[in-house]
């Protein structure tokens, strides 16, 4: 069984974005979602360091020293962009003014807990992750289904420190899509060529099927 490529996974997530949304993309896989927004769907991307409406990473030679994204890379702006301070930036986040936060994950639990900021033993760094999951009306996690060692990242209970408790609304992996409904995981979609039994074998958490 081979799951979706990163680009196919990002495209699958992007297909669920709606025209007019304001969206925050986390680092890593979520960043790729911006490359797959359908023509005619206008989405403004929020960067928590103080920008709404960021575009692609600045091409070499056109960087602006005052214009970086949350990954500290030089970025660009799209029409409709706004700059603001960190307090306003997180008023947008915490106040529920974004439509979705699309974040990477280390682990998602059977009840929708998310762990994505700290592997004990390393240097802790949280950034805006806890604010995003606390405030966004939709928290979507996009991640590989299993880690490099082949262990399920969709787990019964998170071992890593939580980013938020019962905050995840949907999980997109290279194998499938889960919705979190009343603190239960529901399998709603399979990646091309993947079966429910294969998902079951690859998943530590208990889940229901929508059919």
């Amino acid at each position, binding site marked *: 069984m081979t799951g979706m490529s990163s680009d196919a996974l990002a495209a699958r997530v992007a297909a669920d974005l709606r025209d007019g949304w304001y969206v925050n993309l986390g680092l890593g896989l979520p960043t790729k979602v911006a490359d797959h927004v359908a023509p005619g769907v206008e989405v403004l991307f929020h*960067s*928590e*360091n*103080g*920008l709404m409406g960021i575009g692609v990473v600045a091409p070499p*030679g056109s*960087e*602006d*020293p*005052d*214009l*970086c*994204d949350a990954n*500290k*890379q030089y*970025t660009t*702006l799209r029409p409709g962009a706004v*700059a*603001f*301070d*960190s*307090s306003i*930036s*997180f008023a947008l*986040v*915490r106040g529920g003014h974004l439509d979705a936060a699309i974040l990477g994950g280390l682990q998602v639990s059977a009840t929708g807990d998310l762990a994505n900021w*700290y592997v004990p033993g390393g*240097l*802790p*760094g*949280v*950034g*805006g*992750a*806890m*604010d995003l999951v*606390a*405030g966004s009306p939709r928290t979507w996690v996009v991640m590989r289904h299993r880690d490099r060692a082949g262990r399920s990242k969709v787990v019964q209970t998170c071992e890593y*420190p*939580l*980013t*938020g*408790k*019962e905050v995840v609304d949907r999980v997109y992996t290279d194998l499938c899509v889960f919705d979190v409904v009343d603190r239960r995981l529901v399998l709603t979609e399979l990646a091309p060529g993947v079966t429910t039994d294969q998902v079951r074998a690859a998943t530590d958490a208990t889940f229901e099927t929508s059919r």
Partner: protein
Amino acid sequence: MIDKWLPDALTATAGVRSGDTVAIGGFGRAGIPYNLIDAVCERDLTDLHVVSNNAGKDDDGIARLVRERRVRKLTCTFPGTTEFHKQYLGGTVELELVPQGTLAERLRAGGSGIAAFYTPTAAGTILAEGGLPSRYGPDGEPAAVEPAKERRVIDGQEHVLEYPIKADVALVKAHTGDRYGNLRFRLSARNFNPLCAMAARLAIAEVEFARDPGLDPDDIHLPGPFVDHVVQVAPRLDKIFVERGGVR
């Protein structure tokens, strides 16, 4: 007559003391007051409690303060450097890790006369329930951990009680300033800068451009009463811009 201009960064930082809590603006390389930080180093100040988003990037700015062991404690959201990690695990620097929105709001509250606030951010996590090592001992084991914070259910949702940050000094970087201390920032270089200035008893700003007699009232991002000293200096540019012979 109000005139907050001072001739250089060394003069502007005369009121900073070893042991001070220093709130420093900037995110990535945008909006970092590099000249003021260098002046703090030249003044040989130590034992600082630095409040900022990061432990620096590259080898200047806050990274220089850390490398020269001038930092006793860092309150930040994402320390993110090897040098800081080494000093943290080695027990020579203390860490207070704060979610980014909470850091912004604590600084804003510190400058706004707000005694405390409840936020949903971090509810149900180690940052609210305590236990993250704040300091390591010489044996490499945690010597102190963060305490649990007060929590309260409001409107059916758990919230965390957060207290303001009040700094002795703020070091900030703006794009344009005037003699009244009014400041205007540019793009993502605004970030924590206005909030750091608000939270501090003594707020010092470095700016690229002077606009006298004064900025347009509607073009000011941070009003002058929050700012004590302003110094006009050339901004420190990333090496990619230096190699290109400047920018703009």
